[in-house]
C-alpha cells in the first residue's frame, strides 16, 4: 500500500442533503493536494470526514493502509493526521504556548518530549517571541501560525489545511506558502482547501474538484483550468 490516505467511496448526508456523495480520493506520501469547489460543494465536510470530526454514512477512510473509519479525531491525530479549521480557531483564553503544548502533551506521553516538540513547532512558525501572549493580542497571521504550530507539534504525516489563506494579506500568504513548501520538501503531505485559486494553483501538484458533493475532476492544476465541467461549475460561478 503505497498510498498515504485513501477515501473509498465516502458518503455523508445531513438530513436530505447529500454533502459528500461517493467520493474517492487517494493521496500519496509527500503530495501537495488542492481540494477546491464552489460553496457548499462538500470540501469542508470531506476534511471533517478525514480528520474524524464526522463519521461517514458509507465508505471507508484508510490511512497508511489501515482502516480508520471508526477512529475518533484524537486517535487520528495520534496516527498522524493534523488539521487546521476554517477561520481563526484557537483557545481564546490560553496563551500561545498552551495552545500548542496541549496537543503535544496529549500525543506524547513523555512531558519532556512534548515540551521540546512544542519549542520546535514554535520555532518553525516563528512564534518564540509570542509564547506567552493571548490570541486576542495577535494578528490574524500570527494566529494562523499558532494553528499551524498546533498542527505540526503532533508529528503529523498528513496535514489538512482548511482555507489557510483567508483573511491574510498577499505578503502573509506567501510566507505561509513558503513554510508549507519547506515542510512539503521535507516529505510532509498536505491537503489544502482554498478559495484563493491563484495562490493555490501555483503550489499544489494536483487538484481535486468537488461540486454538489461529487468529485468532478482529479488531476494536474493546468488541466483543471482547461476542463470544461470544472470551468462551468467553478470558474463560471466565481
Amino acid at each position, binding site marked *: 500500500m503505497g498510498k498515504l490516505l485513501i477515501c473509498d467511496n465516502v458518503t455523508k448526508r445531513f438530513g436530505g442533503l447529500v454533502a459528500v456523495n461517493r467520493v474517492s480520493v487517494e493521496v500519496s506520501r509527500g503530495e501537495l493536494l488542492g481540494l477546491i469547489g464552489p460553496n457548499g460543494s462538500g470540501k469542508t465536510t470531506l476534511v471533517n470526514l478525514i*480528520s*474524524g*470530526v464526522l463519521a461517514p454514512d458509507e465508505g471507508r477512510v484508510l490511512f497508511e493502509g489501515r482502516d480508520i473509519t471508526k477512529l*475518533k*479525531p*484524537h486517535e487520528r*491525530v*495520534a496516527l498522524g493526521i*493534523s*488539521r487546521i*479549521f476554517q477561520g481563526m*480557531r*484557537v*483557545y*481564546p*483564553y*490560553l*496563551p500561545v504556548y*498552551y495552545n500548542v*503544548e*496541549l*496537543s503535544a*502533551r*496529549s*500525543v506524547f506521553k513523555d*512531558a519532556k518530549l512534548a515540551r521540546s516538540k512544542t519549542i520546535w513547532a514554535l520555532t518553525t512558525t516563528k512564534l518564540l517571541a509570542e509564547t*506567552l501572549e*493571548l490570541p486576542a493580542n495577535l494578528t490574524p497571521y500570527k494566529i494562523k501560525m499558532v494553528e499551524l504550530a*498546533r*498542527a505540526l507539534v*503532533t508529528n503529523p504525516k498528513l496535514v489538512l489545511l482548511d482555507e489557510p489563506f483567508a483573511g491574510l494579506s498577499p505578503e502573509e500568504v506567501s510566507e505561509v506558502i513558503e513554510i508549507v513548501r519547506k515542510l512539503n520538501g521535507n516529505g510532509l503531505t498536505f491537503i489544502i482547501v482554498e478559495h484563493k485559486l491563484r495562490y493555490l494553483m501555483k503550489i499544489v501538484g494536483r487538484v481535486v474538484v468537488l461540486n454538489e458533493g461529487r468529485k468532478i475532476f482529479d488531476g494536474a492544476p493546468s488541466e483543471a483550468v482547461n476542463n470544461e465541467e470544472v470551468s462551468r461549475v467553478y470558474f463560471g460561478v466565481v
Partner: protein
Amino acid sequence: MSKLVFAKPSKIKKVRKLLPSLAVVAIYLALPIMGLSGFWIDVLTRVNIFLLITLSLDLYSGTTLYLNLGVPFTVGASAYAIALLNRYLGIPVEYAILPSAAISAVLSFAIFIPSLRVRGAYFSILSLLLPIILAGLVTSQPFSLYLGGEGGISYPPLFFSYARTLPARERLFFLSASYFYISAAVAIVAYVICYKVAYSDFGFMMRSIGQDELLAEASGIDTFRVKLVGFTASSFLSAVAGALYAAMRPPVTADVFIPANTLVPSLTAVILGGMGTVVGPAIANHLTLITYEVLWGVLGRWRIILYMCLLIVLVLLRPQGFVFYLYLRLKRAVSTKISRLFEGA
C-alpha cells in the same frame, strides 16, 4: 465568555511570598483556641466543608465550563451512604466516610457517563434532573421505608462514642473543635491538590475543552477521557464533603438533594471568585458564606433573595469574577512590602 486564567503563576522562588497566605491560614486555625463561640466554630466548620464543594465545582465546571448542577446528587448520595452503612451494616461513621465517598463517586461516574459523551447543554440538564428526582424518591413509598422518609436517618455522629466519656461541659467544645480541625485539614489538603491539578497540563486540557471542545478533540486531546477523569475527581471531592457533613451533623434528610442547600452557595462562590482560578472561589467561599450567616440577623430569609440578585448581576456584569483580581492585587502589594521588609533587615 469568561476570561479564564491563562498563565501558570510563576514558580514561587521564595517561601516568603507564601508567608501572607500562611499567616492568614494560621490565624484562621487558631480561632477556636482564641475563644471563638461554639456557634461560630460550627459555622466555620460548615464553611470548610462547603469549600470542598466549591473546589469540586471549580475544578470541573470552572475549567471545562460544563456546569455540573448535579453536585447535590453526589453530596446527598455519600451522605445517605454513610447513614445506610451505619443503619444496615452497623459501620461506625468514623470508618464509613471514605467508603461512602467512594460509593458516591462511583455512582456519579456511572450515571453521568452517557451525558459526558454528548457536547453542549445535555450534561447540565441531566445533572439538574438527578438530585430532584432522588429527593422525590427518598421521601416517597416504598423507598421511604428504607431511606428514612421525611425525618431522615439518624445515627451517632463522628467521635460521639469518645465524647461521651468526657465530662459534660467539655463534650460540646471537644466535638465542635475536633470537627473544625478535621474539616479544615481536609479543606487545606483539597485546596492544595485542586490548585496543583487546575494549573497542571491536565487542568489546561480541561480549560481547552471549556474554550473550544471541537478544536480540542480535533487537535489530539482525548476529550472524553479528560472529562471523565476530571468529573470523577471532582465528584469525589463533593462526595467527601457530603460524607463529612453527614458524619458530623446527623440526621441525613432529603434536604441534601435540594440545590438551594448544597449547590447554590458554592455556585455563587465559584462565579464570584472567578471560574477555574481555584484561589478566587476558595476565598469567595469563605467570604460569602460567613457573610451569609451574619446577614441572618439583619435580613432573615431575604438574604437568599439578595444573594440571588447579586449572583445574577455578577454573572451578567463580570463573568470573570472579581475576587480573584482583588486577590492578585492584594497579593502583589503585600508581597512587595514583605520583600522590602526582608531586604531592609
